């Protein structure tokens, strides 16, 4: 099933550039805080260029440092930050993303690796929504798998839930095992510990 037209995309359609509808978000920008960092970097660049335009000749300017993620964002969207229109487009895009982008909360039993997150985000932005953001949580008791929470729904893909769903099978196996094993041959806890 093809994803619907993202709501985020229509928010910045009023941008002066027609490229606004083709803006992309790098895979490395996973969470809303990543988008916030990108927005701050864009503001810093905008401020720097504004100050540079009104600066006195001969005065020193310190070029703001940008992250690899910000560079990737600029590169994949073919933006020229020396142009005010592009800076405005970027700022508007990031602001809309920060406030309007859909967010999905996913909890794992351990902290996921960056590679894992990139693969997951790639799949989600291809299959769910191109600007979907994630909130990563830690839930050690689930064992394995993950727990996904959207705005109104809750999906438990954990091993715990799997065991719960298969409890009937487990019980039947357990009872069958108890019926086969004579009581005197059942090892005690102490024997098992040895």
């Amino acid at each position, binding site marked *: 099933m093809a994803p619907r037209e993202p709501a985020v995309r229509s928010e910045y359609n009023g941008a002066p550039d027609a490229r606004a509808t083709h803006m992309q978000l790098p895979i490395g920008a996973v969470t809303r805080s990543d988008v916030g960092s990108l927005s701050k970097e864009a503001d810093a660049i905008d401020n720097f260029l504004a100050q540079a335009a009104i600066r006195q000749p001969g005065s020193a300017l310190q070029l703001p440092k940008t992250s690899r993620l910000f560079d990737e964002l600029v590169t994949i969207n073919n933006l020229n930050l020396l142009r005010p229109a592009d800076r405005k487009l970027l700022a508007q895009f990031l602001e809309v993303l920060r406030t309007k982008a859909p967010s999905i909360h996913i909890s794992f039993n351990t902290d996921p690796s960056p590679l894992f997150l990139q693969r997951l985000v790639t799949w989600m932005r291809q299959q769910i929504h191109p600007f979907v953001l994630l909130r990563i949580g830690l839930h050690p008791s689930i064992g394995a798998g993950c727990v996904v929470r959207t705005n109104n729904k809750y999906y438990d*893909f954990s091993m715990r839930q799997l065991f719960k769903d298969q409890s009937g099978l487990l*019980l039947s196996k357990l009872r069958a095992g108890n019926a086969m094993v004579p009581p005197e041959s059942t090892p005690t806890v102490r024997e098992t510990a040895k």
Partner: protein
Amino acid sequence: MHKSLNRNVRGGSEVNIWVLALILTSLFAATGAFVYLAMRLPSSKSDSGSGNPYDDQAVRDVEHIFNEEFREELRNRGRLHFEKIIGENAMFLQQDLRLTTSQLNEYMKVEITKKLQEEFAKYEESISDAKELAMGSINKTQELIEQQRQMMTQQLTAEVVKEKTRLIKNFEDNMAAIVNHYVLAAIGNQIDLNDQLEYVINELNANKKDIIEDITNGT
């Protein structure tokens, strides 16, 4: 028993007292007769002082016959006779006393034995009654204890079955969590999140439609 024994002893004492009184009475009577005779002899001598010569002669003869030596002889004989009677009566009294004592002893022995046997019989009967009563009480107590034991056994069995059922139900209700906890404790460190990516994506893919609908239309 003690009262009857006292009564019997008292009865025997009364018999002895009567015999003793009879003997003493006879002794007193003999002594009285002797004293009377001794008193009569001088009085007859004084009465002989009448005017009749025969009488005087008779008095002299009498005094001659019954002179002082004769009287002394009579006194001695009377004394000896009295002593003999006293001795005989004392012997009889001693014999009677011995007989009475032996009879009294025999009687008391018999009575005491009889009373003791009666008392022992009563005592044995009382002991037997007490024993039966105690045995009845012990039997009743044992029956009650047995009933309570059976009741407690039934209650304990019911409680054990109930607790077992509760434990099994609790285990079955929480079995998923228990197994999950066990698996986590056993191999939790060996579960790699990267190996779960395919499973996670498959699950997300299975629910993709609902997720898209929720994030598109949700607030």
